[in-house]
C-alpha cells in the first residue's frame, strides 16, 4: 500500500469562460490530496472546495475514468495526459507527484480544437474526418457469413493495433503542427489491412486526407510526439501506411 500521507499542491489551471473570451492561468490550491487520488479525483476535490467558496468549478471533459472513452483531455506540465507511458489523465494517480509541487494544467491546444470552456475543447473535427470515409459502406443485413473471407492472423492483429485508438486527440495536442495524421492513419490502416475494407480504400484515403486538411489540422513532419503522447501506444508506422495508401490512390 502506498504512503497515506497527504499533500498540498499549487495548480496553475487554464480558465476561460468561452470560445471568444480571453483565457489565463489561475492559481488554485489543492489540499489534502492522498497519493491514491486519481488526477481527476484531485480535481473533483478542488472543485468541491471552489463550489463551497462560491467560485466557479473547473470545467473538464471526463466520463468512463478507466482510460477507454477518450473524453479526458488535459495537458499536464506541458505533456498531453501527463507523461506517464500509455496512461490517460483519468488513470494518472497523484502518487507520481509530491507535496508542494506546482502543476500546470491546460487544454488541448490546436487550431482545429477551439476551446469551449476551461479545459474543454471542441473535437468534433475528428468526428468529421471519420464521417468523410472512416467506414465500410455495408448495409445492415445482407452481408456474408463472418468466416467467408479469411483474414490471416497477422493482418487481424495489425488491424486491431490500429483500431485501439480512443479518439482523444492527444496526438494532435502533442504535435507542433497540430496534425491529426496519427488519428487518421489509424483508421485508414485498420480498414485497408482487411479484405472487407479494400473496395473503398482509394476513395477513403483521399476523402479523409482532404477533410483533415480542411478542418485545419497541420501536416506531419516526423517529430513522433504523437506516438509518445498516445495513451494506447498507436505506432507512427500507420502514418507511413497512410502515406503509402495515399500515393497508391493518386496513381489510380
Amino acid at each position: 500500500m502506498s504512503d497515506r500521507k497527504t499533500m498540498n499542491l499549487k495548480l496553475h489551471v487554464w480558465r476561460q469562460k468561452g470560445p471568444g473570451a480571453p483565457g489565463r492561468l489561475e492559481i488554485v490550491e489543492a489540499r489534502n490530496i492522498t497519493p491514491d487520488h486519481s488526477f481527476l479525483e484531485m480535481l473533483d476535490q478542488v472543485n468541491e472546495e471552489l463550489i463551497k467558496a462560491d467560485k466557479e468549478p473547473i470545467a473538464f471533459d471526463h466520463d468512463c475514468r478507466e482510460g477507454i472513452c477518450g473524453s479526458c483531455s488535459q495537458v499536464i506540465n506541458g505533456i498531453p495526459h501527463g507523461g506517464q507511458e500509455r496512461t490517460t489523465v483519468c488513470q494518472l494517480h497523484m502518487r507520481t507527484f509530491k507535496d508542494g509541487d506546482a502543476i500546470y494544467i491546460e487544454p488541448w491546444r490546436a487550431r482545429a480544437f477551439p476551446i469551449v470552456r476551461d479545459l474543454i475543447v471542441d473535437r468534433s473535427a475528428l468526428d468529421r474526418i471519420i464521417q468523410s470515409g472512416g467506414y465500410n459502406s455495408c448495409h445492415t443485413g445482407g452481408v456474408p457469413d463472418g468466416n467467408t473471407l479469411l483474414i490471416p492472423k497477422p493482418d487481424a492483429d495489425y488491424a486491431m493495433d490500429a483500431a485501439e485508438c480512443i479518439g482523444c486527440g492527444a496526438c494532435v495536442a502533442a504535435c507542433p503542427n497540430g496534425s491529426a495524421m496519427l488519428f487518421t492513419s489509424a483508421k485508414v490502416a485498420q480498414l485497408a489491412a482487411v479484405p472487407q475494407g479494400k473496395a473503398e480504400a482509394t476513395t477513403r484515403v483521399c476523402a479523409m486526407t482532404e477533410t483533415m486538411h480542411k478542418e485545419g489540422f497541420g501536416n506531419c513532419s516526423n517529430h513522433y510526439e504523437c506516438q509518445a503522447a498516445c495513451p494506447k501506444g498507436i505506432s507512427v508506422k500507420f502514418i507511413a501506411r497512410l502515406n503509402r495508401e495515399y500515393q497508391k490512390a493518386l496513381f489510380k
Partner: protein
Amino acid sequence: MILDGKSPKGPIETSWDKHRFDMKLVNPSNKRKYKILVVGTGLAGASAAATLGELGYNVESFCYQDSPRRAHSIAAQGGINAAKNYPNDGDSIYRLFYDTIKGGDFRAREADVWRLAQVSNNIIDQCVAQGVPFARDYAGYLDTRSFGGAQVSRTFYARGQTGQQLLLGAYSALSRQIKAGSVKLFPRCEMLDLVVVDGEAKGITVRDLITGEIRCHAGDAVVLASGGYTNVFYLSTNAMGCSVTATWRAHKKGAYFANPCYTQIHPTCIPQSGDYQSKLTLMSESLRNDGRCWVPKKKEDIGKPANQIPEEERDYYLERKYPSFGNLAPRDIASRAAKEQCDDGRGVGPGGRGVYLDFAGSINRLGEQVIKERYGNLFDMYERITAENGYKVPMRIYPAPHYCMGGLWIDYNCESNLPGLFVLGEANFSVHGANRLGASALMQGLADGYFVIPYTIANYLARITPGKVKADNPEFRKSAEDVQVGIKKLLSINGKRTVNDFHRSLGKIMWNNVGMARSEQSLKEALKEIPALREEFWQNVKVTGSGTELNQQLENAGRVADFLEFSELLARDALNRNESCGGHFRVEYQMPDGEARRDDENFCYAAAWEFKGVDNEPELHKEPLAFENIHLAIRSYK
C-alpha cells in the same frame, strides 16, 4: 392491470420469422416523411440510428458526450456471444436461448430471448463486414472463447476491448449516415423530458450542454437507448455521466418501469481506497481461476502484512463455504460472501472493505511467467491504480455495482406502454431476467438496434400519419417550461452541500440497504432515508453558475435529483419481491446452502410500475411470465 407482452403465438422456433411477416411495412418512398428521435449513441442507439437512417427514415440522434463514440458501451471488455457453433462443440440457437433464460433465473420473456439468440449470428457477420477486428486463429478463421454460464465456446472477442470495437463499428455506420444526411447528430445534448401528445410519444425536450438552450424536437416516434441506472449506487463501474434521467423522465410521463430491483454486482473489482473515490474499476473475473480468496481468521490480524499471517490463520471462506465450487462460485454468491466477511470485521485494506485474492499458490505451482501470460494486463492495471504488485502481495478485491437488468417496460416489439416510445439495450428490461450472463449485454444492444427495431418500428409508423404533431403543439411549450422551472429551482436553492455530496450519501443508503443482500428491515430503512435525503437536497443543495452556459454542476444536479426519486422505486420493488432470484437477494428467502430461493408460485411475473407522483406510491402492474419451452427449474451450476 395485467400487462400483455404480446409474445407471438405458435412454435418458438418460427416465432420471429412469422411475426416479421405479420407486421406492417412502410413504403420505401414514404419512409423519409417519418422523423425518428434516437436518444443515446451506445451499441443500441448508434446501431438503431444508423440502420433506420439507412432504411430512409429521417433520424435525429442525441448524446450527452462530445462524440457518439464515447458512449459507455465502449468500456465492455470480455466479448459478445453468438450461436455460430464454429467450434462444433454443440452450440445452437436453442442452447443460447436456454442458457440465457436459465442464467436470468427464469424471469425473462421466452419469445424475446429466442429472438435474441436467433439474430446473434447476424450480429457477428455485420460487425465483420464493418471491419471490426475480431480475434482470428492462425488459419484466419474467427476465434472464440468460453465465458461464464455456458459450456460451449461461443464468445467472440477483440482483445480485452470488445465493447470498444463493436461500438466503433456502430459509430462508423452512424458516421456514414450522418455524411449521407439521413441522420442529424446532436452531441452534448441531454434529454430532459419526453413529450406525450394524446397518449403517444411525439418528441423530446433537450438541453444543449454548451449553450444551455432548452429545445424541443418533434418526431413521429422516440427511441430511448440511454443505458442503465447503476450509478444510483454512486460508486459503480459505469461512466460518470451514466444516469437514469432519460428513462426516469419518460417514466414520469407515463412509461412503466419494470423490475428496477434487478441489479448486478460484479465480484472482482478494485476496492475503494477513500471517500474521494469517484468510480470503481472492474477486473475480469477470470482471475478467480487461479486466485484464492481469503481474509484473516482473527480480527487482530487485520492490518498485518499478508505474508505475516500464517496459513492456518487464514480463512479461505469460499472454499470453506462452497467446497465443490470453491473460488469459482457464481458471481452473486462470491459477491455476497465477500461482503459477509467484511461485515464480520475481517475485511482488509482501507476501510476494511476488501478481501485478498492470492496468487501465491498458483505462482509456486505454475511459475510467475504462466500467470503473467494469462493475466498480465490485469496485474498491470491493478498496479497502476493501487501501486501494489499483485505477484508479490495478494491483490485486494471487492464487489461493485456493474449492470442493471431492470428498465422501462416494453412489449415484444420493444415498444413501451406509451405508443410511439421504443426502448432498447440496457435501458429496457427484457431479455436478461434477474441476472445477466457475461458477453450478453453487447449482444442485446446490437440485436435491438440492428435487427429488431428496424422491423418493429415500421409496424407502428405504418399506422400513423407522418408529421402530424408539430413542435408548435402546446405540449411542447409546456414541456420546455417545466424543464426551465426545474433548472431555475436547482439554481435558486444555494444551500450548503454540493451535488456530489448528496450523491455520495444516496450511494451509501443504497449500497448498505439495497445492495447485495436486502432484507425487509433494510429496505424499509432505505424507504425512510431516501425521502428525507431528497427533501434535504431540495433545500440545501448548492449549484453554482447559470443555466445559460456550460454548467457541469447543473447537469449533475439534474441527474442526482432523478436518482433521489428513482432509488425509492428500486427499494420499493425490492421490498415487493418476496423472493430471491438472480441479482436480487433477500436474506429472508434463501436455501440452507445460501442459494437464492425463488417463489415461482407468487412472483413469476415482471413488475411494471406506474408513476403516480413523487411522494405517492406507484401502482404495480404485472406481466405474468409463461415458460412453455423451458421447464421452470431451480437454477444450479453444481
